């Protein structure tokens, strides 16, 4: 019989299009990505977008409606005419500037929370999935963490530590970790019985290398997807915490703080809430649409399950 090398089926020359190439063709990824890039650019370029100091109080120009003109004094004492594009709040601060600078805090919170929860959750999840004796202990702790309502835990943590952006980040990240741990653990449990992982065991591959080479790559696509959803929910929870007055200090411009400020005068001056609300909704929608698109392209199995 002829050798397989010559008579067997020919080796496929064309590789399938890569997952990243497919992702970049997905309409959700494109639309969500464009909006996200826009928000990031706004946040980064905040000082150059015609803004003034977002914390500057101007008692003479309180509660101006959008488009109204008012005068303000600069530090050097000159009087200049300003147009309040989005109006001013009850302390006379420029809402446009506050909304633009607020993008920074929201993105910072979203991205850092996603990174922290994913890195920690990945490590703990790998341990729980691979070392059976650790599994019961870790998962009971995670079950415990999941039993605490996220916002309640955040309130407790913020009241324990001094209120500030990083206390808020920690408070939001901790309840997100168990979700990531569960996801990673379930992937590890299914991958560790794959024959190629068992083959690596018989090849004498040390455990750390085994996890890094053969197990970890399987978690990346689902984690990218999970990360976007975590990011969206973190931005939202930060706004909720700020709105409740237990998040970032009130003078710091965040979308939640702006809305909290405007709450008392909402019926008279709705612009206090509308503009930050639009930004918040648009950002979260964009992140979620991006996440959905990534899930469909990077992780088709998960898309079917949901």
């Amino acid at each position, binding site marked *: 019989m002829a050798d397989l090398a010559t008579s067997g089926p020919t080796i496929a020359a064309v590789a399938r299009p890569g997952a990243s190439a497919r992702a970049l063709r997905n309409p959700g990824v494109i639309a969500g990505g464009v909006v996200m890039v826009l928000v990031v650019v706004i946040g980064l370029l905040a000082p150059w977008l015609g803004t003034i100091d977002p914390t500057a109080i101007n008692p003479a120009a309180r509660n101006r409606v959008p488009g109204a003109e008012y005068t303000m004094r600069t530090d050097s004492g000159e009087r200049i005419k300003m147009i309040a594009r989005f109006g001013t709040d009850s302390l006379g601060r420029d809402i446009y500037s506050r909304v633009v600078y607020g993008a920074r805090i929201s993105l910072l919170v979203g991205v850092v929370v996603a990174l922290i929860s994913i890195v920690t959750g990945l490590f703990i999840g790998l341990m729980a999935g691979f070392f059976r004796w650790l599994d019961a202990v870790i998962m009971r702790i995670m079950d415990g963490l999941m039993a605490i309502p996220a916002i309640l835990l955040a309130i407790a943590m913020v009241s324990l530590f001094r209120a500030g952006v990083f206390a808020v980040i920690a408070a939001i990240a901790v309840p997100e970790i168990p979700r990531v741990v569960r996801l990673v653990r379930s992937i590890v449990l299914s991958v560790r019985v794959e*024959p190629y992982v068992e083959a690596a065991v018989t090849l004498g591959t040390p455990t750390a290398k085994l996890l890094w080479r053969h197990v970890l790559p399987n978690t990346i696509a689902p984690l990218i997807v999970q990360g976007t959803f975590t990011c969206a929910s973190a931005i939202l929870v930060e706004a909720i915490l700020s709105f409740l007055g237990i998040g970032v200090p009130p003078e710091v411009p965040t979308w939640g703080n702006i809305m909290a400020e405007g709450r008392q005068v909402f019926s008279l001056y709705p612009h206090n809430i509308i503009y930050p609300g639009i930004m918040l909704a648009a950002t979260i929608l964009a992140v979620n649409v991006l996440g959905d698109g990534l899930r469909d392209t990077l992780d088709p199995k998960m898309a079917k399950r949901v």
Partner: protein
Amino acid sequence: MSTPVLEISNLSVAIHGGGDRAHAVKGIELSVGANEIVCVVGESGSGKSVTAQSVMGLLPKGLMSVESGSIRLQGEELIGKGDAALRAIRGQRMSMVFQEPMTALNPVERVGNQIAEVLEVHTDLDARGRRARVLEIMRSVHLPDPEHMIDAYPHQLSGGQRQRIMIAAALVLDPALLIADEPTTALDVTTQAQILSLIREMQVRKKTGVLFITHDFGVVSDIADRVVVMQLGRIVEQGPREEVLRRPREPYTKMLMASVPSMTPPTRVPATGAVTLEARNLFKTYGRRSFWQPKARVTNAVNDVTLEVRRGETLGIVGESGSGKSTVARCVARLVDPTAGTIAIEGRDIATLSESQVRPLRRRVQIVFQDPYRSLNPRRTVGEAIIEGPMNYGLSREAALRRARQLMMTVHLTPDALERYPHQFSGGQRQRICIARALAMEPVLLIGDEPVSALDVSVQAQVLKLLDEVRRTFDLAVLFITHDLRIAAQVCDRLAVMQRGVIVEQGATADVFANPQHPYTRALFEAAPGRHQEFGSGR
């Protein structure tokens, strides 16, 4: 001659959206008469299942569609019929039995209701009448105690019983045509024999035409009236069973039949080399009764197994699913920890060593797994897979790669395969890569855990030949796990037959085949499909 039950003429099915060929099947001409079993036999990708799906109108939508040709059921054209018209025909005049009875049945519905559903859709019977008919058909497919089983859920039945339920549901309305798509492939050999005889019995009793799809020539020789051989979407040869099996005309049919291993073991010289593997009183128990769980279920997967393999010798472990043969292999490779017993590799016991103690010794025992599509990490090149092991033991990357290139030649692949990814190779080629990966470790014992079971019969023969070559070249001891007696006959020097965790019989292959001692061994031989037909004459 009356009109055939099924008549397919000039059927072509197009595949949309690329792939390696434009047509799944092309120019198919075949017919099934009443009271006749026609076997369609071919390797994977031959288009045999697509043919069945086109008849049932179940082609995957958007991926394939009938391009031309006609399919007539009792003279009535099916192509061009709407979904509603086809639904009325399916179940009533033609029905289908699938390969995997667990997934084909709804797990949350009582099996009796699943049979009754067919009656509910197609007849006016009331609930009581339906129940009576269901009981009647369940009795006729020889299900034990139908009055109880009618209310059982699929998971409460065995694989064979589930397949009987499927057959009962398919035949309850006395269809003219039954399509069976590999209905026994997922079953054990003894169960397979029972299902085959059931299909034969039902077909004779009801004068049904059966289109039976299989890859197994043994099954063909047991059940077929006529045989259709398919390759790459075309019919190569068809004719009455005796004619095709005894005097195949086409070279492809001859090659396929020559690739089926013969049931007659060749004469072998007993190996006299040093003992490489010596396992004594091996136990593997799952579940443990403790103070907290006094009623925990305890399963003896491996129960007091003792065996040895010498240098240059192949010991086969044969048995049905759940017999514990794979667990023995995994204990020896220390992928699972044995509960008790000793496993000596070249005299050193590894059964109770800790993971860190056993790691330096792992290179001496290597294993080739069943599923070639899952045994290689899809994200790493073939080269990286092969050098991973030697580099774990301190070989430099350059030296490991040099060795990998030589090994590629040993397994008859070209060295440039090292830079490619696993998905660019066929199943047989991947299994060669897995063998090369094992050989790179310079093992003394090679374990094959059903290494050819997922491969087509012609590829199977090539991989078995390669395994034999490397055993000779490297003077390896081989532990060969298989459920296929034909392969065992050709490959193994000695055989151990396992049943429910116990080795019931052990001896030289020729002796076991010529004179099986244990009733279970005899039952296995009795059930082997096509045992009266001599294959492998071309070897």
